[in-house]
Structures are given as C-alpha cells and as structure tokens.
C-alpha cells in the first residue's frame, strides 16, 4: 500500500511534468497547479503536530530520562485539587497515562474528550509524565512519532524528493545523450547538459539539507556515512562531466565525448543511490542494520502512517513538477544561447 502511494505520487509528477511537452511553454493553469502542489507539501509538512503513543513515549523516556517529547491521546479526566493537578489521557491503543501539571491556567484551555498533543518529560514512574506545555488541542491531523527521527522527520518531504529529482535529471541527461549520439542533433546535447546541471543542483541541495539534519540527529555535519560518501562520489562524477565539457572547444567533439561520459556516469547512479547504501550498515534510515526497513516502506508500528505517506508522495509529485518547470526554462534559454553562438 505504501509503495503504491509512493509510486502514484511519482507518476502524477511525471504526467504533470511531461505535459504539454518538455520544451513547450507551460500553460498558466499548469503553473498554478504546480504552485498549489508545492504549497500543500510545505503546509502539510509543517502544520500537523507530531505525537507519540503512550507506550512509545514511556519506552523512550525510560531510556532517556532527560528527554522531552510530545504524546497524543484523548483526555478522560482532569483533576485540579489542592494536592493534585492531574490529566488522564487514553491513546488510540487503549493505553492510559497520568500527567501532572503545575500551571493552573492549563485546565481552562482543555476539557474532557478533547484530543490533545502534549509536550511532556519523564514522571516518577512508567506511564506517568510531567506536562511542559500544550502543543495542540483537537488538531485536524497529527503525524506519528518515529523514534530517532522525531521532529526532524519533517525534512523527509523535501530531502528525499530532492535526491529523487537528481536521479531523474541524470536519467534524462542519459536519454538525451543517447538521442544525440543517434541523431547528431546539437539540441539534444544542450538538453542533456541542462538536465545534468539541474540534477547536480538538486544533488547539492539534498546533500546540504541532509548535512543540516545530520548535525541534529548524528551530532556532526559530515560523518562519512555510506549514504554521504555515495552522494559525494556522485557529485564528483558529475563534476567531472562539467569539467570535461568546459575543457573541449570543438563543439562536435565536446558533444560526442560528454554524451558518452553521461551514459557511463548514469550506470553508477542506481548503484550509488539505491543499492550501496542499503547493502552496508549505516546511520541513515533504510540501511542494512535498520530493523524497520526504513520508515518510508516499513509496515511496523511507529513508522510512517498513511497520511504521512500521502504528504511524502505529494512531495515527490510537486518536486517532479517543479523540476520539469526549471528544466523547461533552463533548456529554452540554453537553446537560444546555443543558436546565437
């Protein structure tokens, strides 16, 4: 089911991106749809609060007593007395928790039957917590708490589609390179170079966003993790492509050699992006030692739920559409420059 939702997002993005044609100016309505898709991706990535179920929260806080996290559940009782100020909540799995609070204002903000997301710290025993603040009362949507990823999981809807776009762009660069070698039409060479340039831009963006995420999840910006190493090698390979293009003055030789290089370079892309990081142990989610098979496709509890998978899929669709818009503009400019020179 999760894979199906993911593939639907990619197909939607490809259909939208390829219509009405790669080089034809995009109609106004097309642009509006793309803008709406990206805006929805941004809103759905930021607005819903993240909340853990009670068992997960207890497990995490028992292991890390100084940690703070959000829990979600329905309020069954609020007691405000001289000795005790307590909120009782029940989560979707029927687990009950007791939360103590100091601030007397809080009982005015919430009432029985409210569905709440609360920031808590560890209480004096299992399934007992201290309330830090109310995050949300009766939110429309909540996102699941994925251990190790927590709030930083919001990067998923941007970082992964960016890496996907670099793969798609390099694939297009290879297709146009093959077309150039077949037809000797310089337009195909211009399109291949434009696609590789945008692919490299997105690969750099994916690396940069990943580095910022790594600083807060792994402790430093760069760890030579297999996933980081593989994207670094990929950037070097495509850096050499642009070095090759700028080193040759003869247009025919430049186009021919860079086309052959682009085809060979793409052979490494599936290996470096999809295969190698899954074969070896790594810090990155989805690696060989990740027992959840990665949060994206895993069916285990506490990984991505269907709603999060839909927003993730929407991220793929919107980034694919944005890529084709960028590619359209970039290629049309490159073709004008090519014809003038």
């Amino acid at each position: 089911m999760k894979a199906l939702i993911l593939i639907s997002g990619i197909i939607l993005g490809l259909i939208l991106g390829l219509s009405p044609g790669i080089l034809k100016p995009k109609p106004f309505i097309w642009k509006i749809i793309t803008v709406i898709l990206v805006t929805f991706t941004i809103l759905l990535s930021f607005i819903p609060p993240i909340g853990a179920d009670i068992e997960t929260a207890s497990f995490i806080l028992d292991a890390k007593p100084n940690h703070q996290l959000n829990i979600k559940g329905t309020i069954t009782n609020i007691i405000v007395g001289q000795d005790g100020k307590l909120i009782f909540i029940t989560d979707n799995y029927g687990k009950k928790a007791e939360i103590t609070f100091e601030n007397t204002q809080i009982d005015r903000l919430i009432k029985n039957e409210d569905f709440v997301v609360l920031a808590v710290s560890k209480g004096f025993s299992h399934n007992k917590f201290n309330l830090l603040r109310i995050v949300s009362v009766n939110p429309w949507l909540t996102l699941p708490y994925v251990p190790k990823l927590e709030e930083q999981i919001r990067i998923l809807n941007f970082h992964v589609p960016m890496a996907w776009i670099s793969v798609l762009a390099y694939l297009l660069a290879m297709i146009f390179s093959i077309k150039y070698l077949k037809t000797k039409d310089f337009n195909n060479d211009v399109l291949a170079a434009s696609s590789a340039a945008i692919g490299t831009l997105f690969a750099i963006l994916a690396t940069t966003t990943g580095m910022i995420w790594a600083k807060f999840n792994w402790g430093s910006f760069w760890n030579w993790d297999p996933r980081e190493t593989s994207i670094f090698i990929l950037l070097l390979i495509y850096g050499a492509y642009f070095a090759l293009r700028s080193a040759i003055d003869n247009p025919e030789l430049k186009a021919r050699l860079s086309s052959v290089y682009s085809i060979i370079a793409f052979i490494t892309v599936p290996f470096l992006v999809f295969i190698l990081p899954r074969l070896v142990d790594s810090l990155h989610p989805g690696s060989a030692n990740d027992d959840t098979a990665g949060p994206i496709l895993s069916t285990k509890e506490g990984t991505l739920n269907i709603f999060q998978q839909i927003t993730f899929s929407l991220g793929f669709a919107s980034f694919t559409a944005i890529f084709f818009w960028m590619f359209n503009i970039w290629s049309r400019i490159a073709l004008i420059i090519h014809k003038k020179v």
Partner: protein
Amino acid sequence: MQEFLENNSLYVVLGIVLMIWTGIIVFFFTVDRRLKNLEIKLNTENSDKLD
C-alpha cells in the same frame, strides 16, 4: 500571538519558508514570461531576415 509563536517556533520557520517560496514563484513567473517574449521577438526577427 507573540507568546504562541515563542512556544511554537515551527510556525515562524513555516512563515519564512512560505515567504521564500513566494519569492521563488514570482521569480519563476517573471523569467518564464520574459523568456516567452524573447522567443517571440527572436522568431519575428528570424522570419523578417528570411523574407
């Protein structure tokens, strides 16, 4: 409002992201329109030369 944003700094980030996104949209629309005009101009010049 001030207190809400202090407790929910994620919404400040959301506001900044939306502002950047608005700037990118305006840039995309402007470049696309200018490019379209340039293509029309170049096509007209080319057809004039052929005549």
